[in-house]
């Protein structure tokens, strides 16, 4: 049983991002970068399956610049067995990422692919579903529980009305939501130790996969600022302000 887990290097989620004044994107220079939080849940799920004796190899894959090696080292320190970086400095859309991951899946032939449900930079929430579509595999997105037995995955998902449990045969794709688990923290010594694990790098350019962007990002703009309002002194004034607000509402 082999698990492939995909991880992305993003601006650390605790950092408040700034839009560049020229509207071409957000400032990324000299900011702390880390593994996308949802991907940490995916890695943790893979490691727990291995610890429970249900998986014998975890391959962590990332796509991005050389610096993305950092997040692969984090995955290795958490317990993945080997890492693979598909190296490119190009800005990739999710369709290109899914195609590159399909290439890796074709070579590695995993039984299960785990990913975070979305990356907190572009907030797309695409890649797991797209990869499942390209491979023709079943998918379970927004997972809060995963069980494997008899060549099948039983996955509980967080959906609009509550929770839904799906059963599917392997190979399958599962995307992790926050309640899947509590990812372990890895200290710097463990990350340094992970450097002894195998980590391969391949150039995206040599794979013969079309990664040309399909969309044009015209501008990136900051949200409108909210000005501080007024402070009221009593609950009665607060209630009167609610009443005034309701009076202004139009029927929906």
């Amino acid at each position: 049983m082999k698990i492939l887990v995909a991880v992305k290097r993003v601006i650390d989620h605790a950092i408040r991002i700034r839009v560049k004044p020229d509207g071409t994107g957000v400032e990324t220079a000299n900011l702390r970068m880390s593994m996308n939080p949802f991907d940490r849940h995916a890695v943790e799920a893979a490691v727990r399956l291995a610890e429970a004796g249900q998986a014998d190899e975890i391959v962590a894959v990332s796509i991005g610049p050389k610096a993305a090696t950092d997040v692969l080292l984090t995955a290795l320190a958490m317990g993945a067995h080997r890492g693979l970086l598909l190296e490119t400095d190009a800005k990739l859309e999710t369709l290109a990422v899914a195609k590159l991951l399909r290439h890796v899946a074709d070579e590695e032939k995993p039984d299960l692919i785990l990913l975070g449900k979305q990356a907190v930079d572009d907030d797309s929430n695409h890649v797991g579903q797209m990869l499942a579509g390209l491979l023709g595999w079943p998918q379970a997105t927004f997972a809060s529980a995963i069980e494997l037995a008899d060549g099948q995955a039983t996955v509980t998902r967080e959906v609009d009305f509550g929770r839904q449990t799906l059963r599917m045969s392997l190979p399958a794709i599962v995307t992790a939501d926050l309640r899947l688990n509590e990812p372990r923290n890895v200290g710097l010594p463990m990350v340094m130790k992970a450097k002894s694990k195998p980590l391969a790098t391949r150039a995206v350019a040599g794979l013969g996969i079309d990664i040309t962007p399909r969309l044009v990002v015209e501008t990136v703009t900051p949200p409108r600022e909210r000005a501080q309002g007024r402070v009221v002194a009593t609950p009665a004034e607060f209630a009167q302000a609610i009443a005034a607000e309701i009076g202004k509402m139009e029927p929906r």
Partner: protein
Amino acid sequence: MAVLVLADADLGRLTPATARIVAGAAELGPVDLLVDAAAAEEARSLAGVHRVLAAALPATADALAQLLAVLAEPYTHIVAAANASGRDVIPRLAALLDIQPVTDITAILGPTRFERPIYAGNATETVSDGQAKHVLSLRASAFAATVGENSAVVSNISPEVASATEVIAEVRTQSERPELSTAQIVVSGGIPLGDRFALVEDLAGKLGAAVGATRALVDAGHAPNDLQVGQTGKIVAPDLYVGLGISGALQHLAGIQGAKAIFAINTDAEAPLMKIADVALVADLFEAVPAVIAELDRLGIKR
């Protein structure tokens, strides 16, 4: 231009999101609405629908994406709601069609130009999509439903698609309150409420509001997880958002960017939510909320 919209329905009824995304999609061209046969009658009365395609819709994303891919041929745009079900199916469909999707759209600037939030709403990108087809999801909260009568033609279709996935259980969160992502008023509670979340429900009940919670309160087990408001939960865009004991973590603020007015009660006047609130009250929740409800009663407010 021709648009195929996937209706959002639950238990044979359209959700309020459907009318909103139909109104948004109608800006792109005549709308054919694909709907589960049980909701076909309701669907044909929706303003802005040109034709209803009624089918026994598959329950899982793999089969639904296949079905949409089969139907896609005559359409320039294929649209779903940016909720759990739309987010499940739209990217898979896009991959089948070899199209880069544009999702969580909050404004349609033209047939091929869209706005969508990134970085949890801390920035907005404007994208233009020059592909042959446009595979999109719309945030229902960003579009207003069109009011009006309709009796669109219903065409029954019998798709043959197979799923490799079986639904073995569903657990529904019971609520008599309006749905969070489309509610006009939302009352949310944060961690100071602890096991007294009923206080949020009391005020929400008075205002006919949907009930929400912060991730911290949900993680502490005091509120069900589908009530979580924020970047990683539900995105809300009410006319009035009332936050009780909510400090205003980045990821929570990201989920309420679209609120017209924000009111907050907190003991900490310096909490980020208090700093951006239109109306703020520095007070203990357990004393203030019952007093607010009593004053609303005195004013005769009941929705």
